[in-house]
């Protein structure tokens, strides 16, 4: 038997590890997508709540009217809900602006550095200098071992860094809340279109002989 590809024990181990990591990553992404889908379905239910009375009282009688009123109500709902994230984002933006003006450092990338930004708050590993694995003698970018820690979370005491720390929390919460309400807005738009097609539908198929 002729072996075209001869894998060493080490190669096999690396391939299995990479394969498992890829599967786990896709599974995690799938789980996250499932959670987001459930959140969106729950947020879409708001359409039923705010449109129910108008449909029941027969004030809305056509799909076109349903979509029109649904769109206006959706914007009202968004406006009501999005005020908090917008306030948080504005606070964060003002702090950043003060930081930029006082330090005269208008290069936004410094916001993420260790010395002047939020970088010092996170663990950092030396991925670049980690020992890389090779498969069939070909060097890859897959690290062989867990790289060394080059930064343990700590606080840098200078004006630029402190302002970055203060602005980071409202920025993070604001962005997460904004994304949540954005997804809610999209799901309500989809639900409005879906309902406009079904609410006024007359079904004769399931009423055979009963009319």
């Amino acid at each position, binding site marked *: 038997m002729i072996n075209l590809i001869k894998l060493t024990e080490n190669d096999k181990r690396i391939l299995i590890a990479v394969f498992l990591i890829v*599967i786990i*990553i*896709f*599974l*995690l*992404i*799938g*789980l*996250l*997508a*499932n959670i987001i889908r459930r959140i969106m379905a729950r947020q879409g239910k708001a359409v039923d709540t705010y449109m129910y*009375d*108008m449909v*029941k*009282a*027969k*004030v*809305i009688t056509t799909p076109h009217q349903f979509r029109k*009123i649904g769109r*206006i*109500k959706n*914007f*009202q709902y*968004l*406006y*009501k809900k*999005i005020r908090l994230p*917008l306030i948080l984002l504005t606070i964060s933006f003002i702090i950043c602006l003060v930081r930029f003006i006082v330090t005269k450092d208008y290069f936004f990338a410094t916001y993420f550095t260790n010395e002047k930004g939020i970088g010092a708050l996170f663990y950092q590993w030396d991925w670049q200098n980690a020992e890389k694995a090779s498969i069939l003698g070909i060097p890859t970018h897959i690290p062989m071992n867990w790289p060394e820690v080059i930064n343990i979370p700590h606080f840098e005491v200078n004006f630029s860094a402190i302002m970055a720390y203060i602005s980071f929390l409202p920025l993070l919460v604001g962005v997460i809340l*904004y*994304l949540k309400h*954005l997804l809610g*807005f*999209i799901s309500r738009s989809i639900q409005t279109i879906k309902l406009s097609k079904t609410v006024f539908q007359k079904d004769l198929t399931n009423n055979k002989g009963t009319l």
Partner: protein
Amino acid sequence: MMLSILKTFGLGLLCTILSPLILLVLALYFVYTLLVVAIMYIINIFKYFKGTSILEELEEEKKARLILKGEEEYQAKLREAYLNNITVNPYIPQNSNQEEENSLSNINGGEDND
């Protein structure tokens, strides 16, 4: 169990492939909603000085509320009459609240004129 894991894996794979498109849609919606909310905020400032708000009930909601309230009151009266053994013609609404009735008829009249 295995099927659900496979489905989750497939969803993860699909999301990864479509991630640039999903991000693009989210970014577009982000800009769109930001613009709309900014415009609504400006309109709300003008409305505030007029004594109204952008969040107040729509005309359709007011109409629906009045209609449903009238129906509820009529149903309550029917129930009460049934319990007191009084014969009520179900085809004639026995609404004692004249003001409510007037507002309802105004709405209906307004609709006819449109």
